[in-house]
C-alpha cells in the first residue's frame, strides 16, 4: 500500500481565505446529475437518507399489519382475519420491524452522520456502503415478494422447526424467509464491516477513541456484535433451507435431527441482535440529550464501557429465550444469573441520563421530550425484562402478552422514541430546515400517551394468561375489555407517528432555515453547513477534546480543536486515514468514485436468491456468473486509487 515514491505532504489550507477551494471540492465529490447518477452514487449522505426513508416505509408497512391484527383482537371470537392471514401478518410484522426497520433505520443515522461526526469525507468503503443499502432494499422486497400471493412467511420471526420444516409448512412461505434472511445477512455484514473500519481508520486527527461520541460507541459495538451474531442465523437458515429443499435432516427429529439446535442458533443471533438495535439508539440519546441539558453527558467513560459490556454479556444470555425447553436446572441457573447481570450496564446508562438531566438545565424542545420519555419507557421495558430473567417466573411469563409488552417497550421505547427524537434533532442537518416545535410536541404527547395506553395493559393481559400468537380468544377469559383498550391505544400511537410523518413531509420544504448549529450542540457534524456540502468539510478538522464546539466554554480544557484550517486533500476524492486509538494521521485515503458496480452486484446477488427460491439452477448459475463479472468490474484496478503515505505526521 505504501509506495515510497508517492510520499506526499497534504496541503494545509484555510478555506475562509481562498474562495476557489470549495467549488473545486464540489466538482470532485459531486454525484452526476440525473437518475443514473443517483443510482451510482456512493455519497454516505444520500445512502443514509435512503436507509432512513426505506426503513420508515417498512415501519409503516409493519404498522399497518399491526393495525389489522389489533382490529382482529379488539374483541373475543372475531373473524375479521382467517388464522392463516393472522399468522402471516404477525410473522411479517415481526420480520419487518426487527429486520427491515429497526437496524436499517439506525444504519441510516450512522451512515449520514458518521463521517460528519468523525470529521471525515466519507465512510471507509463508500462502494460497500452503497452495496449494503441496495442489498438491504432488495432483501426487503424479496421478503415481501410472496406477501401479495398470500404466501408470506407464517412461522413467526423466530421460525421454530419443525413447524417451519417441509412436512408442516410445504409452501414457499418459509423458503422466502430463509433465503431472504441469508441475503439480508450479506447487507448487515458488509455494513457492519464498513462501520468498524470507518471508526478505526477515518476519525479526524486528534479524535482519540475516548473522544468519540457515544453514538459511535453504540454503532461500533452493534457492528462488532453483528459480525459475530449474523453467521449463526445465516447458518441456521441455510441448514433449514437444505432440510426443506435438498433433503438433509439437521432439524428433523424423525431422522436424528435436533429441533433445539435451531433455537440455539437462532437465539445466539437473536439476542445480540436485540442489543444491536438498541445500543446505537441509546447512543443517540447519550449524545443528544446532553445538548438539551446544556452540559456534557455525565460519566462518558462509564457509559461507553457499559455499552461494550452490554454486548459482551449479550452473547451469554441467549438461553433465556429457552427457559421452558426442558434444559437442565444448572444451565438454566447460569443463564438466569447472566440475564440478571446484564441489567447492570443498562442501569449505568439510566443513572447517567438522570444525572445529566438533574445537574443540567433541561430545555423542553421536542427532541428532549422524546429522549426524556424514552428514559421512562426504557426503565419499564428493562424491569419487565428483569422479571423474565428469573427462570421459574419466566416459565409463567414466556409466550404470554407480558413478553409482548416487554419487547414493545424495549423496541418501540428504545428504538422508535430515540429515532424520532433523533430525526427532530438532526433533521436540520439532513435538510437545512427545522421541524415544527408545535407539531412535534403534539406528536410526542400523542405517541407517548398512545404507546402507554396501548402497551402497558398488555402486561396485565399476560398476567391474566393470554398467550401470544393466537388469532383469537374465547369470551370468559377476562381478556376482552383490556384488548379493546390496547387496540385504542395502539391506534392513538399510530396517529402520533402519522403526525410526525406529516411534520417531516411539511418541514422538508417549509421548515425554518436552520443554520449550521441550531441547537448549539458540541460535536463536529454541527461545524459544517446544514445540509452539509457534498465533501462534508472543506478542510479536515483536527480535534483536541470531546466537545469541539463547546471547548471555548469548558472549564480547564487544554488545546483547542482547529476547524477553520486543516488538510485540504483535493487531489481527487481523498480523506485522511488515522491510527486506531490516538487518531494520528498516517495515510491519505483515496476514495473511490461513484460506480454502478455495487447496484449491479446487488441485483445479481438478488437474482441468485430468486433462482434458489424457484430452484431454477440455470438462473442461479447465470446470476453467480453475473455476480463475478460485477465483482471484477468493481475491483478493476484504478491507478487513481493507489494510496499514498502521509509523511506529515506528528
Amino acid at each position: 500500500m505504501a509506495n515510497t515514491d508517492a510520499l506526499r505532504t497534504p496541503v494545509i489550507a484555510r478555506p475562509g481565505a481562498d474562495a476557489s477551494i470549495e467549488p473545486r471540492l464540489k466538482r470532485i465529490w459531486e454525484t452526476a446529475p440525473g437518475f443514473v447518477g443517483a443510482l451510482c452514487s456512493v455519497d454516505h449522505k444520500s445512502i443514509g437518507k435512503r436507509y432512513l426513508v426505506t426503513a420508515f416505509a417498512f415501519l409503516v408497512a409493519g404498522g399497518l399489519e399491526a393495525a389489522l391484527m389489533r382490529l382482529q383482537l379488539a374483541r373475543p371470537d372475531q373473524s375479521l382475519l382467517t388464522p392463516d392471514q393472522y399468522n402471516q401478518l404477525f410473522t411479517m410484522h415481526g420480520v419487518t420491524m426487527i429486520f427491515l426497520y429497526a437496524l436499517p433505520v439506525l444504519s441510516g443515522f450512522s451512515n449520514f452522520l458518521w463521517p460528519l461526526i468523525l470529521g471525515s469525507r466519507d465512510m471507509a468503503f463508500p462502494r460497500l456502503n452503497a452495496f449494503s443499502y441496495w442489498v438491504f432494499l432488495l432483501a426487503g422486497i424479496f421478503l415481501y415478494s410472496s406477501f401479495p400471493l398470500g404466501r408470506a412467511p407464517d412461522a413467526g420471526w423466530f421460525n421454530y422447526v419443525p413447524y417451519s420444516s417441509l412436512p408442516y409448512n410445504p409452501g414457499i412461505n418459509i423458503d422466502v424467509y430463509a433465503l431472504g434472511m441469508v441475503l439480508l445477512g450479506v447487507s448487515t455484514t458488509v455494513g457492519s464491516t464498513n462501520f468498524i473500519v470507518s471508526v478505526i481508520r477515518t476519525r479526524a486527527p486528534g479524535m482519540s477513541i475516548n473522544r468519540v461520541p457515544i453514538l459511535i460507541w453504540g454503532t461500533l459495538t452493534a457492528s462488532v456484535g453483528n459480525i459475530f451474531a449474523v453467521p449463526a442465523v445465516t447458518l441456521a437458515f441455510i441448514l433449514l433451507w437444505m432440510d426443506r429443499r435438498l433433503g438433509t435432516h439437521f432439524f428433523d427429529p424423525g431422522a436424528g435431527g435436533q429441533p433445539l439446535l435451531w433455537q440455539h442458533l437462532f437465539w445466539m443471533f437473536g439476542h445480540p441482535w436485540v442489543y444491536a438495535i438498541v445500543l446505537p439508539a441509546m447512543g443517540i440519546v447519550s449524545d443528544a440529550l446532553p445538548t438539551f441539558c446544556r452540559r456534557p453527558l455525565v460519566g462518558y467513560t462509564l457509559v461507553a464501557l457499559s455499552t461494550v459490556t452490554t454486548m459482551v454479556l449479550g452473547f451469554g444470555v441467549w438461553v433465556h429465550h429457552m427457559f421452558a425447553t426442558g434444559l437442565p436446572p444448572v444451565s438454566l441457573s447460569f443463564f438466569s444469573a447472566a440475564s440478571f447481570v446484564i441489567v447492570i450496564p443498562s442501569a449505568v446508562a439510566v443513572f447517567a441520563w438522570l444525572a445529566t438531566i438533574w445537574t443540567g438545565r433541561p430545555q423542553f424542545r421536542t427532541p428532549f421530550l422524546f429522549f426524556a420519555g424514552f428514559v421512562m419507557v426504557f426503565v419499564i421495558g428493562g424491569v419487565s425484562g428483569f422479571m423474565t430473567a428469573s427462570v421459574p417466573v419466566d416459565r409463567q411469563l414466556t409466550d404470554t402478552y407480558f413478553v409482548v409488552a416487554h419487547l414493545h417497550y424495549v423496541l418501540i421505547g428504545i428504538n422508535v422514541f430515540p429515532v424520532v427524537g433523533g430525526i427532530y434533532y438532526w433533521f436540520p442537518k439532513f435538510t437545512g430546515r427545522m421541524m415544527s416545535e408545535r407539531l412535534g410536541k403534539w406528536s410526542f404527547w400523542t405517541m407517548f400517551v398512545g404507546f402507554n395506553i396501548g402497551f402497558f395493559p398488555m402486561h396485565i393481559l399476560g398476567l391474566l394468561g393470554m398467550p401470544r400468537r393466537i388469532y383469537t380468544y374465547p369470551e370468559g377469559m377476562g381478556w376482552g375489555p383490556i384488548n379493546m383498550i390496547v387496540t385504542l391505544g395502539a391506534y392513538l400511537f399510530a396517529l402520533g407517528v402519522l403526525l410526525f410523518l406529516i411534520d417531516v413531509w411539511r418541514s422538508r420544504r417549509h421548515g425554518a432555515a436552520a443554520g449550521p448549529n441550531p441547537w448549539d450542540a458540541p460535536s463536529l457534524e454541527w461545524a459544517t453547513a446544514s445540509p452539509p456540502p457534498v465533501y462534508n468539510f472543506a478542510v479536515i478538522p483536527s480535534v483536541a477534546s470531546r466537545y469541539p464546539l463547546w471547548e471555548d466554554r469548558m472549564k480547564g480544557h487544554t488545546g483547542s480543536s482547529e476547524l477553520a484550517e486543516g488538510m485540504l486533500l483535493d487531489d481527487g476524492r481523498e480523506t485522511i486515514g488515522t491510527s486506531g486509538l490516538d487518531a494520528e494521521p498516517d495515510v491519505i485515503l483515496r476514495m473511490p468514485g461513484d460506480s454502478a458496480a455495487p447496484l449491479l452486484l446487488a441485483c445479481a446477488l438478488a437474482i441468485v436468491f430468486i433462482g434458489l427460491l424457484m430452484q431454477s439452477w440455470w438462473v442461479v448459475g447465470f446470476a453467480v456468473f453475473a455476480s463475478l463479472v460485477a465483482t471484477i468490474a468493481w475491483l478493476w484496478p484504478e491507478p487513481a486509487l493507489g494510496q499514498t503515505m502521509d509523511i506529515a505526521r506528528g
Partner: protein
Amino acid sequence: MKRARCGSALVLCIAPLVADAAEPMSYLRTFGPAGDPVTRLGWGLGIVALAVCAIVGVLLLAGMLPRVRPPLGRRELAVRDDSGGTSWIYIGVGISTLVLLACAIWTMATIAAVAMPAQASETTVQISAAQWWWNVRYLNRDPSRIFTTANEIHIPVGRPVRFELESRDVIHSFWIPRLAGKIDVIPGQTNTLWLQADAPGTYRGQCGEYCGAQHAHMAMWVVADEPRDYIAWSERQLRPAAPPASEALERGQQAFVANCGACHSIRGTPAGGILGPDLTHLMSRGTIAAGLLRNTPGNLAAWIADSQALKPGSRMPSMAIAGNELSAIVSYLQTLQ
C-alpha cells in the same frame, strides 16, 4: 387457598382483576406447591419492578421541575465540566446490584423449591401433544390399567402427579397457569413436569408455543377431584364403551366405525384409529375440539358436519354425512358415558 397477596397500593389496583372465576388463565394466584413459590417470587419481582419504575419516574420528573436559578444565556452551558455527577451512577448502580443479587438468590432458591415434589408421585400421565389437541394417557405398571383420553386431565387433590410430555408433530407447550409454569413439548425428546392441586376444581390450560393455524384453539382442562372421586373416574375410564342398547344405536355405532374409525378409537368397538382423540368416554368430557365447544349434542353434530368452519385448518375434516346418519352417530356418541 390463602396464598399471600402482598399488600401494596399498586397491587390493589390490579387486585380487582384477580377475581377467580372470571380469569381462568390468571396466574396471579396459584393453587398448588408446583406454582406457589413461583407466584410469590413473581409478586416479589413485580413489586421491585414497579418500585424501580416509580423511583425513576419521580427522579425524572423532579429533575425537570423548574428550580430557582438565574436564566442561561444564549450560548451558556449549565455545567462546564464533564467529570461531575458520577456519584449518581455509583450509588444507583450499587443499590441496583444489591437488589439484583437478592433477586438472583431468591430465584435460585425457587428453582430448587419447585424442582421436585415433596412426596413421590404415584400417578404418571403421558401427554402427547398434536396439532391441535392433547392426547392423555394414564400410565401404569399393569398394562391392563393403562387408559387413554383427551384434552381433559383428572388428577387427585393434594397428590403430586408426574407428566411425561411428548409431541407427535411440532413444538407445543404444556401450560396450566394456575398450577405451574409451562414446559415445551418438543418432538424427539421427553420433557417432564409435576403438578399438584391443593383445592378441588377445574384449571384451564392452553398451548403456550405457537404451533400453527389453530394454536389459538388448543386448550385443555385439569380437573382436580377428591381422591375418592378420582378413583371412581379412573375406574370408569378403564372400562370399554358400553355396547349399543338399541338397534338405532347399533346403526349409529356402525356409521361411526365406517366414517370415523380410521382416526378415532372407541374401545370395545372396531374403531381403533389413533390420529384423533380417543372417544371411548367422550361424554365424560366437558368440551370438544380441544376446548373450542361445549360438549352438547348440537355442537357435536355441528363439529362433525363442519369442523373446518368452526376450526379452520383443523386435522378433522368436515364430514359429508347424510342427516339421518349424522344424527345416528350423535345419538350413539351420547351413550359414551
